[in-house]
């Protein structure tokens, strides 16, 4: 491990680990014991990295694993907006690292980041609501494939190295992410969800096209017609019925 810690805006309080179970679990533990907003847990390796619904997030050294403590004092229903803000910030950060000629960076609903239709980064959020019904804290977990990516996924994956970003280091990615993420979080605070939603839509993969959405016990096929004001996916089924989807995995039919 190099001794140089990444340089980050003063908003962040970096908590660096060589190895931990999960940066989000650690951030939750810290938040529960009063950690301030901006506390950023970073680990070079996770032994129990996780994704949605108990899935494993492959976490060998060489990739970025961070979890940020936020205390946005909003209603639980508004927390999803911060997931989109994070995706937009992370997207800007990765775009600045992609070489000329790399495929376009796109978002897969709600907040996966893809290059050439393959997943390069993911976001997962954990909320805790206080007795007053407001968010107590929100943990924003981010994983970025830099040196490697898992090859056994139900979707395609890739890494910054694989798309030609060369010798970019974890520290460099973290520094760039720190700046862009803070910018979009500030924009959300000042201007609300509308500009975040617009930026997300401008990079959305599959908008207007037929997609499959895998739910827990069912898969729906239809046209991805809209992102709702709360961030839900609006799917138009073949019979014309519209379904508003708050949770599921999006798949794109083969080209």
């Amino acid at each position, binding site marked *: 491990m190099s001794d140089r810690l990444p340089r980050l805006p003063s908003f962040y309080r970096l908590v660096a680990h060589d190895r931990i179970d999960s940066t989000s679990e650690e951030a939750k533990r810290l938040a529960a014991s009063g950690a301030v907003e901006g506390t950023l847990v970073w680990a070079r390796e996770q032994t129990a990295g996780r994704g949605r*619904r*108990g899935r494993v997030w492959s976490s060998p050294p060489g990739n970025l694993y961070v979890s940020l403590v936020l205390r946005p004092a909003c*209603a639980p*229903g508004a927390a999803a907006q911060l*997931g989109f803000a994070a995706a937009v910030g992370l997207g800007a950060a990765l775009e600045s690292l992609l070489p000329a000629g790399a495929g376009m960076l796109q978002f897969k609903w709600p907040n996966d980041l893809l290059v050439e239709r393959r997943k390069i980064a993911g976001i997962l959020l954990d909320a805790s609501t206080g007795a007053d019904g407001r968010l107590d804290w929100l943990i924003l977990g981010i994983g970025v494939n830099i040196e490697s990516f898992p090859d056994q996924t139900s979707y395609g994956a890739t890494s910054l190295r694989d798309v030609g970003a060369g010798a970019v280091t974890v520290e460099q990615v973290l520094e760039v992410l720190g700046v862009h993420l803070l910018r979009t979080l500030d924009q959300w605070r000042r201007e609300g969800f509308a500009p975040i939603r617009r930026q997300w839509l401008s990079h959305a993969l599959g908008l207007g096209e037929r997609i499959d959405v895998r*739910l827990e016990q069912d898969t729906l096929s239809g046209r991805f017609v809209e992102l709702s*004001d709360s961030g839900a996916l609006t799917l138009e089924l073949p019979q014309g019925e519209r379904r508003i989807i708050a949770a599921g995995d999006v798949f794109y039919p083969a080209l």
Partner: protein
Amino acid sequence: MPKFDVDESLVRKLAGLLEETGLNEIEYEISDQRIRVTRGGATMIAAAQAAPMAQAPAMAGAAPAAAPSDAPPAGAVLSPMVGTVYVSPEPGAPPYVKVGDQVAEGQTLLIVEAMKVMNPIPAPRAGKVEQILVSDAQPVEYGDVLLVVQ
């Protein structure tokens, strides 16, 4: 006095909007009817004829003139948001709680997911799980009764 029919779907819609926008209060007026939904410890619903209420200071001791007819039962735990509810931490895992379980205050009862935000629903108080009104992976609306803890 004309009968004031509470439009439940409207109230629910307004409550959902309140939740989504993070506002503390929404007032909706049409002809002589007015519905105000405010956020407090619990969502309070006040409905009345517009004219007499117009001069009344907000919330000044006025009892709600009408309440939803399907007021949740005592001990009801409501969904704080629109989302998908999960009864267990991951598919195939044992549920967080079963009917008849004793739970401690703050113990996780369910998870509601919306756009990859995982929201554990804590027990508001210690007690016994009397009823579970949702099934795994079911979509829920804001204010839906998820379970009852007595």
